[in-house]
């Protein structure tokens, strides 16, 4: 069997980096030492998506995000000037957290240890016991410690470096251009699911950046949806590489019959199973039999888009074999009951399909850790895995 026996070829719409074609080593998925290198060389050098602007609509609104891979807790807060800033959640006195609640609205942050008070802009506003601190210090230097923060289309990102080498926009590059036209601000979040499986972050992420698995894993939830006689292995219709990022278009079987209730509510709004309309920011290469785009923002954020809905994943590494996974589902705002029921169908079907995806993760991790395999086989159907690993290797090599 060879390339000439393939029923369907994915269109590669950008230059493919020289990332090889052989098996991939298992070690990066199981090694604590490798994970520490990723922490330093990848996660401390990349823009990381942490929230959306709708999470912080008003001055004083704040959100506390645990970023385990940075070993930090990060406060995102909208100032009185309307700007969203990010700070390490640490008092500059003796290191206690200054924000304890997960979110809220505040005029500032008062440390619960000795009541130092910080403004929404991070400035130290009240240094309790100031007269008793000796030695040289400047109160201006004792504000909350900022992280670089920026947003693209309402997605808030932070960067651990004092001076990120690229702006967020520069970093996102062609992927941002491809996705700019999607009306994120006309959508509302309809679900958030979180889980912390015992799995390496790349094993978890890889399960969502190919469609080959859909035939087997989703044989119940999405039967015959991602493959057909012409494309029996659910090859992607097209793929694009944008620096460290990538965009993958999933194939839709034209003969797929969506479930009845999906069709019934799909008359009144888009659903994951039924929506087929033209829509801004999707299907960039006008593929036939297109389903949705899997958009991977290196290193650990996905924004998958379809006609009227999108969903995001954050794969937050906790350790070499623990990942905190967050899924948010968004859909065009419902103006009436029909639109709400369409949202409900998107949510229920995606939720149940994701529960199927999770079925393989911990078993894979356990057996990779057994040491039985030294390498895994990766096909062209799974080209995104190869790209992710190749980019990580590039970043480690330049650390």
């Amino acid at each position, binding site marked *: 069997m060879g390339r000439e026996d393939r029923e369907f070829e994915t269109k590669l719409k950008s230059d493919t980096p020289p990332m090889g074609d052989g098996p991939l080593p298992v070690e990066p998925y199981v090694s604590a030492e490798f994970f520490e290198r990723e922490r330093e060389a990848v996660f401390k050098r990349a823009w990381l998506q942490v929230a959306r602007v709708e999470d912080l609509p008003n001055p004083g609104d704040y959100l506390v995000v645990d970023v385990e891979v940075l070993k930090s807790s990060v406060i995102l807060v909208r100032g009185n000037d309307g700007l969203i800033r990010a700070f390490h959640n640490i008092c500059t006195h003796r290191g206690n957290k200054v924000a304890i609640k997960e979110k809220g609205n505040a005029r500032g942050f008062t440390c619960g240890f000795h009541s130092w008070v910080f403004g929404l802009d991070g400035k130290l506003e009240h240094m309790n016991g100031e007269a008793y601190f000796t030695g040289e210090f400047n109160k201006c230097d004792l504000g909350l410690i900022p992280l670089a923060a920026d947003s693209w289309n309402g997605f808030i990102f932070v960067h651990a470096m004092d001076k990120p080498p690229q702006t967020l926009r520069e970093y996102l590059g062609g992927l941002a251009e491809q996705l700019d036209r999607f009306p994120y601000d006309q959508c509302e*979040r*309809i*679900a*958030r*699911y*979180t*889980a*912390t*499986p015992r799995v390496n972050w790349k094993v978890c992420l890889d399960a969502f950046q190919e469609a080959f698995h859909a035939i087997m*894993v989703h044989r*119940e*939830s*999405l*039967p015959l949806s991602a493959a057909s006689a012409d494309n029996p292995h659910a090859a992607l219709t097209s793929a694009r590489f944008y620096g460290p990022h990538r965009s993958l278009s999933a194939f839709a079987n034209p003969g797929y019959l969506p*479930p*009845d*209730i*999906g069709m*019934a*509510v799909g*008359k*009144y709004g888009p659903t994951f199973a039924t929506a087929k309309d033209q829509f801004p920011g999707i299907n960039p290469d006008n593929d036939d039999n297109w389903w949705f785009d899997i958009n991977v923002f290196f290193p650990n954020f996905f924004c998958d888009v379809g006609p009227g809905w999108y969903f995001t994943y954050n794969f937050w590494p906790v350790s070499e074999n623990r990942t905190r996974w967050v899924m948010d589902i968004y859909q065009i705002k*419902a*103006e*009436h*009951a*029909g*639109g*709400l*029921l369409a949202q*409900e*169908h998107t*949510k*229920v*079907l995606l939720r*149940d399909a994701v*529960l*199927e*995806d*999770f*079925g393989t*993760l911990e078993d894979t991790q356990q057996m990779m850790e057994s040491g039985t395999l030294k390498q895994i086989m990766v096909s062209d159907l799974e080209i995104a895995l190869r790209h992710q690993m190749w980019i990580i290797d590039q970043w480690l090599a330049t650390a």
Partner: protein
Amino acid sequence: MSAPLPDAFASLAPFTDKWVLASEKARREARMTSSMEEITAFYNAMKPVLDDAIQHLNQFELEALPEAEQNLLWLCQSLVEVSVAVELFFNPWPRNAYPWEKFAVTY
């Protein structure tokens, strides 16, 4: 008297006690703890009237639904929840699903 419904949908009254549920959590739990017989009976009663129900409900502001209409909408949301059990899984819950208790739901 159990949860009221709009007059035109009075035939659904036998299902209100179990399926008029205001949150995804409650609807999902009702699905997970029901037999396929219960789920299928509810599905079969709802499916033929779903489009009429949506057209009726669409006349109202979503944020200001009268009580009977709100109950009807929740019934319809329960129908969507159980529909995948009837149409796709042939089982109340996906057989190959990751353990639900390891998932956290925010909304």
